């Protein structure tokens, strides 16, 4: 079984392969944390609509393989949201005191990193 991790950040798309789900989720976490550290956005004011940094997605990191299709969105304020699916994404609700990355691992069957 192999898993593919896709990291979309602005103009770039990077792909990695991982042999295990754990390794794939580790790669997801590393890429998401890196984006959260380094990619921030200013507010966008289009007059008819304004988008706060938290409304903007600066990176999307997804894992695909072995029946798993899920990922995290990193927002312009450094926050993250986890989801399953790709085109029709369903948000993964975080439990109290749970991070989005931990929620992702729980939802796809990985262990806490």
């Amino acid at each position: 079984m192999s898993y593919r991790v896709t990291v979309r950040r602005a103009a770039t798309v990077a792909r990695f392969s991982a042999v295990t789900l754990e390794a794939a989720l580790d790669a997801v976490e590393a890429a998401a944390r890196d984006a959260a550290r380094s990619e921030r956005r200013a507010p966008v004011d289009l007059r008819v609509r304004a988008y706060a940094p938290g409304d903007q997605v600066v990176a999307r990191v997804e894992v695909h393989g072995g029946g798993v299709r899920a990922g995290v969105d990193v927002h312009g304020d450094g926050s993250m949201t986890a989801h399953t699916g790709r085109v029709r994404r369903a948000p993964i609700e975080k439990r109290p005191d749970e991070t989005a990355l931990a929620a992702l691992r729980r939802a796809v069957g990985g262990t806490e990193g």
Partner: protein
Amino acid sequence: MVPQIHRLSDGRAFVLRPIGPDDKARLSDSHARLSEESVRRRFLAAKPALSRADLRYLTEVDGVDHIAIVAVAADDPDRLVAVARCIRLAQRPEVAEWAIVVGDELQGLGLGGRLARTLAEEAAQVGIRSFTATLFGENQPIQGLMRSFLGELHGGWTGDGVVELAGELGVDRLAA
């Protein structure tokens, strides 16, 4: 999306393609060429220039939650003349907010309709089922354009002369 050629009845040709991060300068130039009235109709207010944050947001799109199709002159690919975009609503993921702007000299010639239809086809492929738009009630050309590919529109006045309209992306209409 594969780039498409759209030719006006006068022979001028335009390439329709997804927007990309490299389009920041083209989009900024395009915005600067718009008349004050076209800017006011697009943004419902004065918007003399697009900020760096605006340009980043408007060009670095994911093609799933935020789709934007541009038209550039076939004989001058750096001349961006129109943009249609839709942004999926976070709380209602089957609905996307829609907007279009066409350079003043090309309004009413059919380019906007083709662009809007192309955007609708792309949106339908990623599960978007309807568009909603916020515009001036007096902006009949855009309302007519919306009806041309969305059919019947629903909605009403939100105040200050602004209406919020919505329509379904009918597969039959898109195929017509």
